[in-house]
């Protein structure tokens, strides 16, 4: 017996992502799915962002890592609500992991929720978790060839932060090529050059975040 079906393979994840999105909208919280390679500076960017927006926006964080609680401890020190998810090996967060973490956050008290995905330039781009926007970081030490090697993440991200600009004098990296290739993959992407170390560019980024949540 042949059964014709027309189902999305990731339909279960997509439906749950929509449910998360409904909960976020009802709670009045704007949600950003933050993605990058390991070590590009996701947690450092969150630290800089939380400090810069202190007293302006109420921020919460969901931390996704394969194992460990180091990132959540760094965010907790800044006095904002944080939940750590350990995927136990999975290379990305999915909608169900986020759904289960929501019970530990008072969403109605937040303006902005960051979901820090597992460090990985490939898989997180494939799985919706219910976010309003995807944002990615590429650090200069990773090299200018990354947009064309990992195109999906650049195509899916509404904003690209080019981090570690303070290291530019020491690196043979072509920032203009990163910009040009990222824009050819996604002409609508918003690009910010930042250094979490020196604070350069952080105000432009946090200014943009404030326009999203106002």
């Amino acid at each position, binding site marked *: *017996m*042949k*059964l*014709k*079906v*027309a*189902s*999305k*393979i*990731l*339909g*279960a*994840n997509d439906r749950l992502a929509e449910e998360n999105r409904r909960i976020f909208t009802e709670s009045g919280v704007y949600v950003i799915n933050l993605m990058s390679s390991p070590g590009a500076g996701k947690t450092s960017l969150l630290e800089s962002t939380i400090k810069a927006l202190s007293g302006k926006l109420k921020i919460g964080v969901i931390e996704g890592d394969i194992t460990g609680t180091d990132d959540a401890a760094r965010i907790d020190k800044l006095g904002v609500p944080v939940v750590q998810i350990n995927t136990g090996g*999975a*290379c*990305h967060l*999915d909608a169900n992991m986020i759904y289960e973490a929501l019970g530990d956050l008072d969403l109605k008290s937040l303006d902005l929720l960051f979901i820090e995905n597992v460090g*990985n330039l*490939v*898989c997180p*781009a*494939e*799985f919706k978790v219910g976010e309003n926007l995807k944002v990615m970081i590429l650090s200069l030490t990773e090299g200018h060839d990354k947009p*064309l090697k990992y*195109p*999906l993440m650049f195509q899916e991200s509404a904003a690209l932060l080019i981090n570690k600009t303070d290291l530019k004098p020491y690196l043979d990296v072509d920032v203009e090529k990163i910009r040009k*290739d990222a*824009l*050819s*993959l996604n*002409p609508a992407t918003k690009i910010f050059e930042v250094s979490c170390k020196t604070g350069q560019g952080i105000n432009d980024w946090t200014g943009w975040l404030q326009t999203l949540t106002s």
Partner: protein
Amino acid sequence: MHEVSIAEGLLATAVNECKKSGYGKIEKVSIKIGKASGVMPEALLFAFDAMKPDTIASEAVLDIEEVPLAGICLYCEKNFETEDSYLLCCPHCESSSFRVISGRELDITELEVF
């Protein structure tokens, strides 16, 4: 890398569709995978076979149809199709403004059940 998650979603959907229609065993699952979906057919087959024991799809065959990446250029308005996984510009006029028509599929199309 995440083919195990995809195989999990695939098995759950197939089992659900089969039971919903009142059948108890799956013999074949036919799917369409777009060339630009980021999923490797060989890795998906491996994950599917590793996860199917102890389900009603324990003897099921996974049949994968690969769909090429195709689109229409918004500048020269010509259609195109490629065997590549990604395109950065229209192959005719090199404009970077184009709309993808197919190639991102991750769909189940047919089940053989009894």
